[in-house]
């Protein structure tokens, strides 16, 4: 696919995503999304004849963007706990900035079908490799349970899910230190995880002061 076609495809999927956010996945019409993206339609309709395919592609675009932002955040950290903190903060900022998209991510799209719920689960699981560095840092390596990375991701996801579901997505960044504790504790133990949580709170307070 050429760069311009790729760009147009992304533009269409963005429009589809907006349409899903506004109308809900069940109320989406491909034609409306096409108009929103400024296409006359027919050639793109050929690619997305099946509305489900279009919905799933738009959802994939959303999850890929969130994963990319998280990865970019991780890259800003110098050591492993800091990488996890920066990645988490980047993700929470994204979700907080678009509460309606956050609700689509966790609830209205997965509600469509078992396949849609499967996509959400895949998205959640995709974060587990980002935590692999914790195993080495813990000094316990293979002694730690095989599933510890997914367990830690699931711990964070449960807290984030409840906040979004309760309509508090905008407040997610303030919870970053507490969520960080749950992400780190299986690798570092409660004392070190608590210290990192404290450090994250101090960093956040510093940012708040700077912003003020």
């Amino acid at each position: 696919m050429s760069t311009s076609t790729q760009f147009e495809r992304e533009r269409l999927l963005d429009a589809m995503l907006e349409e899903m956010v506004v109308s809900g996945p069940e109320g989406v019409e491909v034609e409306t999304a096409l108009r929103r993206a400024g296409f006359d339609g027919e050639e793109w309709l050929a690619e997305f004849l099946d509305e489900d395919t279009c919905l799933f592609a738009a959802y994939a675009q959303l999850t890929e963007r969130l994963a990319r932002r998280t990865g970019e955040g991780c890259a800003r950290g110098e050591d492993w706990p800091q990488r996890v903190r920066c990645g988490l903060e980047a993700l929470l900022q994204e979700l907080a900035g678009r509460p309606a998209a956050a609700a689509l991510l966790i609830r209205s799209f997965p509600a469509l079908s078992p396949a849609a719920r499967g996509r959400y689960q895949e998205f959640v699981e995709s974060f587990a490799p980002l935590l692999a560095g914790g195993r080495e840092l813990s000094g316990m390596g293979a002694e730690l349970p095989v599933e510890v990375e997914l367990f830690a991701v699931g711990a964070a996801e449960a807290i984030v899910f409840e906040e979004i579901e309760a309509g508090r997505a905008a407040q997610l960044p303030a919870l970053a230190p507490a969520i960080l504790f749950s992400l780190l504790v299986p690798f570092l133990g409660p004392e070190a995880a608590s210290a990192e949580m404290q450090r994250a709170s101090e960093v956040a307070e510093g940012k708040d002061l700077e912003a003020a």
Partner: protein
Amino acid sequence: MSSQAADLPERGPQETRILPHDIVAPSERDRLIEAMALTCAERGYAASSVEEVARRAGVSRRDFEENFADKAECGTAAVNQMLADITAAASIAYAPQYSEWEKILRGVRALLELMAARPSFAGLAQIEARQGMGPEAYELYTSGIRILEAMLDRLQANALGGVARPPSAIRGAIGGAEALIRRELLAGRPERLPELLPDIIYGMLAPYLDQQEALRYAGLARELLNDGG
């Protein structure tokens, strides 16, 4: 609600009386609840229809309507049943002769075995009620989580001292276990759920205990699993 005996003479076509082999509950209401769980496991809640659930339970639509106002009521009844079973299984494991840590270990084992034995209901309570059904079912799901949180909260008194834990640590400890459970259910591997016991025990105890101590309990969980004791 009508009794099964009273309903029989009023039933519709003969084929509605033939029970599929996968529905064994004695009462009509229980059969409908079981059929709802099985249908949702195959098609998801949104795509499950009253007609299909009734057919699967071996009853007519009219029989369905005598038991439940609509699909949502039947769905929440199924979620409720699983929550009641989960609470009962966990409560039995909470016998006074065990330490708080052993209670968690035995309670989680009971839950995993229950979910492995009843994967349709587990999927309904763990996945559909959370993301696929209406607000009432989600409320039931969260009330189940709150019960588990209360059980886990008892660990605070015996936890490693001098550590500031956020209030959300308990939700996280349960959420980690849920992620593993959901992965197996979505992948159609419910029989593997009991094998997750050591990893789940480690993850649930990690916020409260020194890591070596949490690993020791994970080891005990492995022994419990191997011995079947």
